[in-house]
């Protein structure tokens, strides 16, 4: 079935899908309905990421709520020159998810109650632990081009919220080595994905 191309210029009033940057500017002025619209556009991505790290749905919703409240409160401090709106919000999301993992650790209930991760994963289980099924084929392929060690270090820290010390314990390598691997791995990913500033 062929698609007929039509060129219709809609009047401004129908152009209700504003860019995320425009929405953030409105939000900085206190516009609550723009906040609702931005939430509609990004909440599934934010929640998907947080759920990936935390696994627990109730906690993930709490953290998602914290993320959007931070967006509401700090919208006027968002600087489009430093990156897109989704980059800003996804970075906040990951940081808050990791903060929650760490605070769960502090209260010692993460393994028994929440099961956020298998803390004593031995090396043989690592390959399974870092299995991620990504929707995005390009990112999947880029990850495959890392060395096995780089990929494990990057995925354990990003998708599981491991600190570099935990990555070191899990992979049984010195912390300094992990830092290097994380950097080398991220640089390789950057180059594979063609990210430039």
């Amino acid at each position, binding site marked *: 079935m062929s698609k007929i191309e039509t060129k219709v210029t809609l009047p401004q009033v129908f152009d209700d899908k504003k860019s995320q940057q425009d929405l953030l500017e409105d939000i900085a002025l206190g516009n609550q309905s723009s906040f609702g619209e931005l939430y509609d556009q990004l*909440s599934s991505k934010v929640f998907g990421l947080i759920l990936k790290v935390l696994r627990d749905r109730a906690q993930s919703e709490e953290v998602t709520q914290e993320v959007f409240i931070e967006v509401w409160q700090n919208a006027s*401090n968002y600087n489009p020159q430093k990156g897109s709106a989704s980059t800003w919000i*996804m970075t906040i*999301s990951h940081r808050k998810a990791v903060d929650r993992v760490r605070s769960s650790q502090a209260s010692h209930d993460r393994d028994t109650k929440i099961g956020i991760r298998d803390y004593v994963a031995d090396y043989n289980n690592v390959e399974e632990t870092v299995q991620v099924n990504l929707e995005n084929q390009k990112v999947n392929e880029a990850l495959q081009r890392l060395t096995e060690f780089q990929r494990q270090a990057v995925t354990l820290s990003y998708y599981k919220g491991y600190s570099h010390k935990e990555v070191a314990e899990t992979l049984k390598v010195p912390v300094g080595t992990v830092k290097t691997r994380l950097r080398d791995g991220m640089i390789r990913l950057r180059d594979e994905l063609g990210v430039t500033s």
Partner: protein
Amino acid sequence: MSDIKNDNLLNLTGAYVLHALSQDEVEYFEKELANSEQARNEVVELSDTAVMLGLAIEPVKPSDKLKANLMAQVAVTPQLEAKPEVSAVPNLIVVSEAKTKATVEAKKRWFQKPILAGIPVAIAASMIVVAAVSGNVSGVQQQTEANNLASISEASDNQKVNATVQTGGTATVMWSEEAKSSAVFLHDIAEIPSDKDYELWYISPDGTARAAGILSEDSLNRGWQVLDGQMQEGDTVGVTVEQAGGVQQPTTSPVLLVETV
């Protein structure tokens, strides 16, 4: 910056953007970052790369309740440090203490009765941390309520007043004459016995009370409720503690009164 120090700093960029550093290391890194343009540029690029890892995950829709909670929360959450050119924040109504009428003069005939005493104190609801509680209200209804709330908070004549709830905790009443509607936000209000309910009222200037719903468990959990019925000019919003299920006319003294003028 010495080359060795710069190398050490650069060695941390990957761990930094993946949020894998300890708090101490983050503080050190961010402080030192000011001295290395190379490290700053690398952090920007690697942060964007990390975000691509995040965006590659399958999106998952959170519950509708979460949006309702958030919309309610932003309606009462001040924003931080607006830039100078956006200092006029139209929707953020500053609560005027002068307008607070927590206790209104006893012109309404049923105000004279003593305040209900002996209600156990407990945290019922907090606006700041709205816990993810499983409610029994459907998503559609939640959405309708959130929309009703939005129609008040987005009205140009929207006003808010904070007041103390006499049985404990505080409340914010937000209203709009344009929308002919009002909502009450509750902060740490006292839990009441299971055979009692908080009941909401619109009270006209002549003292006639119109029932405006009882506070549901969902509302207590999320911390707000839009009043039933239409608000009329000069109405006072009131809350009383009544027998479970509510009554036609108030039988106890109000624990909260706010004039919408």
